[in-house]
């Protein structure tokens, strides 16, 4: 875990480029898939918050999965869903307190942010750098 995904809502303009980038980065049947990131109105003037998976340490989705389909990737630090092991019980979708495990009705599957395997596409496309993927300073680095 040498990098971390940083969301800075202060500079988000709510342009939804990240949503598009995510949908195109996770296509299904040649069409854009379901986005894993949503800029949502923060409740104040000119304030948008890009809501996406926070990759919690003690994640409710991982705890709720009765078949261990959700596991943390030790390299990227992202919690990844093994779709072949998922039994579609919807426990993670219901359990996530941030609402970031999503049901994609188009492909009848649960989807969640996997940090694009270590190179989040949304961060590349964010015009104001409200989303960024930055190296962790050595002193901040969490063991493991």
């Amino acid at each position, binding site marked *: 875990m040498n990098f971390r995904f940083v969301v800075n*809502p*202060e500079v988000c303009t709510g342009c939804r480029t990240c949503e598009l980038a995510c949908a195109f980065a996770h296509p299904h049947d040649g069409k854009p898939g379901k986005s894993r990131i*949503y800029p*949502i*109105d*923060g*409740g*104040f003037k000119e*304030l*948008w*918050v890009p*809501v996406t998976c926070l990759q919690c340490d003690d994640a*409710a989705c991982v*705890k*709720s999965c*009765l*078949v261990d*389909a959700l596991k943390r990737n030790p390299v990227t630090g992202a919690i990844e869903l*093994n779709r*072949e*092991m*998922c*039994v*579609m*019980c*919807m*426990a993670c*979708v*219901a*359990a*996530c*307190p*941030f*609402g*970031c*495990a*999503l*049901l994609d009705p188009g492909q009848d599957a649960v989807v969640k942010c996997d940090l694009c395997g270590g190179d989040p596409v949304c961060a590349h496309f964010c015009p104001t750098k409200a989303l960024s993927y930055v190296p962790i300073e050595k002193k901040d680095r969490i063991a493991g």
Partner: protein
Amino acid sequence: MIKFTINGKLVQADQGDMLLTVIRREGIDVPSQCHHQAVEPSGACRLCMVEITRQEWDGWSKFVTSCLYPVEDGLMVTTHSAKVIQLRKTIIDLYLARHPNSTEIMRLASEYGVTRTTYETVADGDDCIMCGLCTRICAHMGFSAISTVGRGHDKEIAPPLKEAPTDCTGCLSCANNCPTNFIEFTRDSNSLTIWGRTFETLACSQCGKTTITRDFAEHLSKTRDIPIAYFEVCDDCHRKETAKTMGRVVNWTREVQA
């Protein structure tokens, strides 16, 4: 690392991997109805049969269910030889006789060019192919609310004593993974009925959208140490709440800086 060939191509796999896993990983389409990565393989549907041979077998070969066969060094696997295709056609032929109305079996039959069954069709044949995937998933999730009951022609999937199951939590994993979509459930605005038992579904306290059943949420809350409050709001409202909370923090820092 174990090295063997699939259709002449040299592949590598870890010790203990099953043949079907490696075959699928290589992108080869071998049909299977009863296989799911989450549970132990059982080899019930027999559709994933492949032909295996070895150098020292002098041309002899045998058929195995690839989902149950661990990889071995020097194995030569053929997934679509004439003999295997004929074997699969026979199995599909039998399925077609027993489950004439199943769309999944019909799809499989058309894929393999089986136009009609050579056996006598079972008149009142249902769509359950007795693969036992639902019971294995239910057991793996820790409920074991359903199992196979009876034997021979009367064998079926049912809860104990064919009564409303007390161990079931209405998670719908059985119905969602049934290869032939045989397991039925009904859902209305605030309840869900499966295996003859009606469950109360949780509704989002803010928008009213129904999520999982109350029994399933309570089970997860109790066994997995997740606050029950997490289940009382739907994912859409959770995201809005997250945005509002983070918005307040950002607005506060703005005010401090101004």
